[in-house]
């Protein structure tokens, strides 16, 4: 199914956020990462259970250099 991941269209095999994160080697045990689906933040505790629908927009962000 097609979603948007960090601004880019992307085809995912499953419908779960956990699978998507695993596919991109995002380790939920490591701090410093945050996730939003359709501009709603998904708390870390819900990463395992959150699901994806076609057309969802997912943002995976981290701290970067800044002033």
């Amino acid at each position, binding site marked *: 199914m097609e979603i948007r991941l960090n601004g880019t269209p992307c085809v995912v095999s499953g419908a779960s956020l956990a699978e998507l994160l695993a596919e991109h080697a995002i380790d939920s045990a490591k701090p*410093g990462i945050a996730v939003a689906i359709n501009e709603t933040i998904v708390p870390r505790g819900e990463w395992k259970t959150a699901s994806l629908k076609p057309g969802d927009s997912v*943002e995976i*962000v981290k701290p*970067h250099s800044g*002033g």
Partner: protein
Amino acid sequence: MSVVLSIAGENFSSALMAGSAGYPNRQIMLDALSASGAQIVTVSIRRVDLSGPRESLVELLEGKYRLLPNTAGCATAREAVLTAGLAREALGTNWIKLEVIGDRETLYPDVEQLLKAAADLTAQGFAVLAYCNDDPITCEKLADMGCAAVMPLGAPIGSGLGILNPYNISTICRRLSAPVILDAGIGTASDAALAMELGCSGVLLNTAIARADDPVGMAGAMRLAVEAGRQARQAGRIPKRHYAEASSPELGLIGT
């Protein structure tokens, strides 16, 4: 440790806050931050590069510095509030440097959206350090709604122009009981010293150090400047006069 700055119930022995952007390389960034004596370091929140290497700024800085995420790049209250929420999730802190930018050329805040975002975030329990223009009215509004610090610019971000309106900064410092942090436009050490002499509780700068010819050298200079400015302020300067007043005594002059 002598406390020189308190923000949102946390105490610091340095009044200098530094940014993490624009250094020639990571090692110089680390060396400069160390030389600056800063205890608070700002970071931005950006997309993970899913195809690239996963280096972690957080791993380099966490434990040594109190990280302050910003909402740089946000142009609306909605974007800023979302970014603040993501920052809180990523870093586990409710501190946020709130930037809501109105125009890409000046990087001045969109005051209407800034006030909206600040009201929303303070209500949600964030400790908001609000980057704003040097308008005393806007600064008072931000302080009144409970921002943890108000951060007026001295000049546009990265411009190095120093403090363009010292009278406004002085007024802002006089009126607000919230900490006032001069944020943006600092170019060299004397600008940072002036900020403290005008009554600021602290100074936040990035470009002045990161893009100096010798970032580590400039970081050390900034550290001294902030300390000197603060000490001068506390020592109580002489007033400015339009006329001379001789310092040597007028009595006992030879030939009188």
